[in-house]
């Protein structure tokens, strides 16, 4: 006879409420892990999608994803002279926040090296790549824009011609793609009054002579190390492979978030553990008399241990199931991308098993100390 199952049925409301609470806590544990995976995915999305073999950035810096990088725009031509290089594109990238249609529109803007790069590599879900050198943009759907909508950036209006899905920056902002000249015009836009003051002072125009980085495409089979060695000989540049640039993102920008989320996850696991231990201990206290009676009629310790341990495992299993269901339902509504991998599910299952066993120890300890004499009290 399974005593635990019958006791669970008898205390169904209390255990169901506890399992619900545990389930929500475990969902958050799963969510923390998913948010980290989402951060890594979003952070590395651009580096992976833009399909550059090498990144040329300002000397002694780690590139635009890690810190400010500014290199001459004509590095693009210099790079093409390196053996093995078959393509070079300028890379301009920064964050914008503008008012549009009565709401704040925060996005990360990237310049495309028109006409070589029209954004055809982007995952378009509507519209088309850039068809003109100016005043067209491709925007991510997360920005809430629609095809044909016109946005004022700087002094000009840009029309949305294409929509991407899942193209966000490392900070989670939806991305906007315009031609490189447009990107630089937006970046170096000056208010009218500033232009008048500069002209009065006979100062030169604030010309867009620099870019954040230059992306290199190597010929198939070309020796990347040899190309890097040549570029490293130039005093103003540093070259990184795609993997290195991705690593800077993941272990630089995302690492602090990973540690924070990891710590938060540990706290949630501890809270779940304490909650489960407390409820199991309370349930054991409630059953002190029954446990004493079971001992009086000769129940072995394993019967008593099994009763409490099985209840702990029940709580853990129901909590885990609820966590999966709730997560599946709620994660799409989270503001940042949440990616839960099969490894996360297994890790959580192992964690739940662990906390179920550990949380039952207090109750088991208490139950084993109950004397059959307690029946008489």
């Amino acid at each position, binding site marked *: *006879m399974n*005593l635990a199952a019958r006791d669970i*049925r008898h205390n169904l409301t209390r255990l169901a409420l506890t399992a619900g609470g545990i389930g929500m806590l475990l969902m958050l544990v799963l969510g923390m892990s998913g948010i980290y995976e989402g951060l890594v995915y979003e952070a590395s999305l651009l580096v992976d999608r833009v399909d550059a073999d090498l990144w040329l950035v300002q000397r002694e810096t780690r590139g635009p994803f890690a810190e400010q990088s500014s290199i001459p725009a004509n590095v693009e031509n210099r790079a093409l002279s390196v053996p093995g290089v078959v393509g070079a594109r300028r890379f301009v990238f920064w964050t914008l926040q503008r008012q549009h249609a009565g709401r704040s529109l925060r996005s990360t803007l990237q310049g495309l090296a028109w006409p070589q790069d029209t954004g055809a590599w982007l995952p378009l879900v509507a519209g088309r790549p850039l068809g003109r050198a100016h005043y067209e943009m491709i925007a991510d759907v997360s920005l809430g824009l629609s095809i044909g909508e016109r946005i004022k950036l700087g002094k000009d209006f840009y029309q949305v011609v294409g929509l991407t899905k899942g193209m966000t920056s490392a900070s989670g902002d939806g991305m906007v793609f315009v031609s490189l000249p447009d990107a630089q015009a937006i970046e170096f836009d000056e208010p009218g009054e500033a232009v008048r003051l500069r002209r009065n002072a006979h100062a030169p125009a604030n010309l867009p002579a620099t870019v954040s980085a230059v992306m290199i495409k190597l010929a198939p089979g070309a020796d990347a190390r040899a190309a890097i060695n040549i570029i490293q000989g130039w005093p103003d540049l540093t070259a990184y492979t795609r993997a290195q640039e991705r690593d800077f993102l993941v272990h630089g920008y995302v690492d602090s978030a990973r540690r924070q989320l990891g710590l938060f996850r540990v706290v949630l696991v501890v809270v779940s553990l304490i909650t489960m231990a407390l409820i199991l201990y309370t349930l054991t206290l409630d059953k002190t008399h029954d446990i004493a009676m079971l001992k*009086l*009629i*000769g*129940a*072995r310790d394993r019967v008593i241990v099994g009763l409490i341990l099985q209840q702990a495992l029940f709580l853990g299993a129901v909590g885990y199931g609820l966590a999966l269901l709730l997560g599946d339902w709620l994660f799409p509504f989270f503001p940042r991308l949440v990616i839960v991998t099969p490894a996360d599910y297994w890790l959580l299952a192992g964690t739940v098993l662990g906390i179920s066993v550990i949380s039952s120890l207090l109750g088991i300890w208490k139950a084993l100390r109950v004397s059959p004499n307690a029946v008489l009290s």
Partner: protein
Amino acid sequence: MNMSENPSKPAVEAVGLTKIYGSGATEIVAMREVSLRLEPGEVIALLGPSGSGKSTLLTALGLINPPTAGRVAIGGVLVLEGDRALTDLAAFRRQHIGFVFQKANLIPFLNAVQNVQIAMEINDAPPRLARRRAMELLGYLGVMDCANRLPDTLSGGQQQRVAVARALANEPGLILADEPTAALDGARGLQVMELFSKVAHECGAGVIVVTHDHRALDVFDRVLQMEDGRVWPAEKMSFPSEYAGPIMTHASSCSFSNVQVFDHPAASPCLALKL
């Protein structure tokens, strides 16, 4: 081994049982040199005021609370010598002793039949056989209709009958009952006492009943008096006439009556209900 299967040995034999709580100035002697012998099939009442040591004696004989000094043999097997256990007490209790208390102490999350069944399963009986015997015991005690009801839906008398069924589950040679009728009214109290007498005589189990209830002493073979930790034989008191007649049948669908108990086809749970 079942005690009732060995009628030549006493159901329980205690020699020189002494129980001392505390020490020095706080020392309390709860039991002084108590000796008693209970034969199989014998049912005795143990009377005495509160604090006289009745429960201490019962827990010592029940191997729950070992004495400070003295010896306890059950079914001819010496199991306690002072506070030293000569065997696995829990296992011995499981196989050879049945308990009934003032409160039925049924497990609240098990229904009536499961409360009886669990005692047998703990003693390694196969679940199906344990259930069958549990049902038969409930039938024998007149509460079969309550088999699937949880304890909190049963009356006090019904609960106590289920508790008696549980005590009988493993066919113990010794049944210890501590004020089993204290929570029952007179009629139901008498029924329970008669039940013990019947179980003792039909099953050959030795039964000791601690009671304050002087109205039902006629059903016992012997009456012992306990006071200040000592035991001696007491005079039996006559059974009050208002309880001598037939017991009223309870209105509940799973009620019991004398007729149900004693005229049930499974007249002896010990002979007819072997596992």
